[in-house]
């Protein structure tokens, strides 16, 4: 998708070194990256390479040991409700109902407005009928949709999704990808999506950032120039996918 590229987020020379018990591990090594406004960007890399770490620095949960992250020109110093993070380890609050979770970030709104938004996003993610249910009574896919709805409800302009569908079965995962794209097309948020699944990245993203094993560097940035809805058996799709497989050094045969 060739869009007018207005930069939303700019990472400049991000490095991250963790020190623990005297040893230091370098996890991110001098990563620079621009993310466009309204872009769907995938960070792709093997497990443990530092994707979550990079995403956390871009969201302000971690401060990098080198470099800086700017959003709309401002340096990121901490988390902010204008950009919401959906966590790899399930961040829905088990002590709140579906309604309570979606309404969590809406405390500044009037009551009526809050209820209207809650109802809207419950519908958007298809959780009608479960308004009063607690997370433990929901399936994995429903919990994940709940967390996405909670993020969208505060109307952020950026969403950080850290392997959000990693724990779901493959059918639910496919459905959730479709839903996410539908929501993205409706609301046009900037989305930064972490995954270690090549197919997932090629199905979703405008651009795929391929990262190397630790310490993570950007190996290649692949533009996915297929319009949505994407035909996942089209020659162009297969060509792009196999290109990434090769880039990572995996022959695509078992």
């Amino acid at each position, binding site marked *: 998708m060739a869009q007018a590229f207005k930069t939303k987020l700019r990472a400049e020379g991000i490095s991250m070194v963790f020190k623990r018990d005297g040893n230091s591990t370098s996890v991110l090594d001098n990563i620079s990256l621009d993310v466009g406004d309204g872009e769907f960007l995938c960070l792709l890399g093997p497990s443990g390479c530092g994707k979550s770490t990079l995403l956390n620095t871009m*969201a302000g*949960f971690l401060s990098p040991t080198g470099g800086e992250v700017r959003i709309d020109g401002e340096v990121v110093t*901490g*988390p*902010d*409700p204008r950009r*919401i*993070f959906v*966590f790899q*380890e*399930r*961040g*829905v*609050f*088990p*002590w*709140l*109902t579906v309604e309570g979770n979606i309404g*969590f*970030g809406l*405390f500044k709104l009037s009551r009526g407005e809050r209820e209207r938004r809650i109802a809207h996003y419950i519908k958007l993610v298809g959780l009608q009928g479960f308004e009063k249910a*607690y*997370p*433990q009574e929901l399936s994995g896919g429903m919990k994940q949709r709940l967390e996405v709805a909670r993020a969208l409800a*505060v109307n952020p302009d950026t969403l950080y999704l850290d392997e959000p569908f990693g724990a779901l079965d493959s059918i639910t995962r496919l459905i959730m990808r479709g839903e996410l794209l539908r929501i993205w097309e409706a609301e046009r948020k900037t989305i930064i999506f972490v995954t270690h699944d090549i197919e997932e990245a090629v199905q979703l993203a405008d651009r795929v950032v391929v990262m190397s094993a630790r310490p993570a560097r950007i190996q290649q940035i692949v533009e996915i120039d297929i319009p949505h809805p994407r035909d996942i058996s089209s020659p162009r799709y297969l060509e792009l996918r196999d290109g990434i497989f090769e880039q990572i050094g995996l022959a695509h045969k078992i």
Partner: protein
Amino acid sequence: MTLLVRLRPVAFIAVLLVAWHIAAARQAVHLLPGPIAVAFGLVELAQRGLLVKYVVASLFRVTWGFMSAAIIAIPAGLAIGWYRRAEMSLNPLIQIFRPISPLAWIPISILWFGVGDVAAIFLIFLASLLPLTLTAINAVESIPTVYINAGRNFGLSPASLVYRVLYPAVIPQLIIGLRITLGIAWLVVVAAEMIAVNSGLGFLIVDARNAGNRYDLVVAGMVLIGVIGLLLDTGMRSLEGIRSLRWGYSED
């Protein structure tokens, strides 16, 4: 479950009572009372007005001691658990004080407060303070980081982070700690009353023995202690069934 199966525990209790009755009737020296004597003992206590009076006295002490400990220990424990340096500083002191049986404080408690209610309440306070503090510390430390981060995400002020995330996240563990500690407090009040005051169920037991070897009243006192202890425990346990808390007890 069929009715028959449900009645089995009742039948078992009946068998135990009969066995107790026979054993008591056949003993050579009549020291241990049988179940019937104990039942009459309870009636006698009720008629003399002692039953209500002593139960109320014991519950009064437990309530005050336990409540005041909870009011201090829970916020303190949450703060200590949150600030790593506070935890590092205080942990050794807590660990040394904790295994000191609260009853070993009896002499000091009497020295400070004299023989009476306050001394007993102070002992229960001491018995509850450290277990509750430790529960709160552990509860905070075991909050998954992801909840805190999720809360920070939405731009909460520190105060509302405490109120809306920290506090609901620790409640289930706190309730378990409160229940176990209430059990300890109930154990300690009996002991404290045997030594430091002259009313309450613990006093009833020593008094019945010292004033004329009334073992029927001793056992009646024990029955009362058991029943009230069971009620306290059941009451606390019912909190664990609250719908918004159930996520914290998925184990069983």
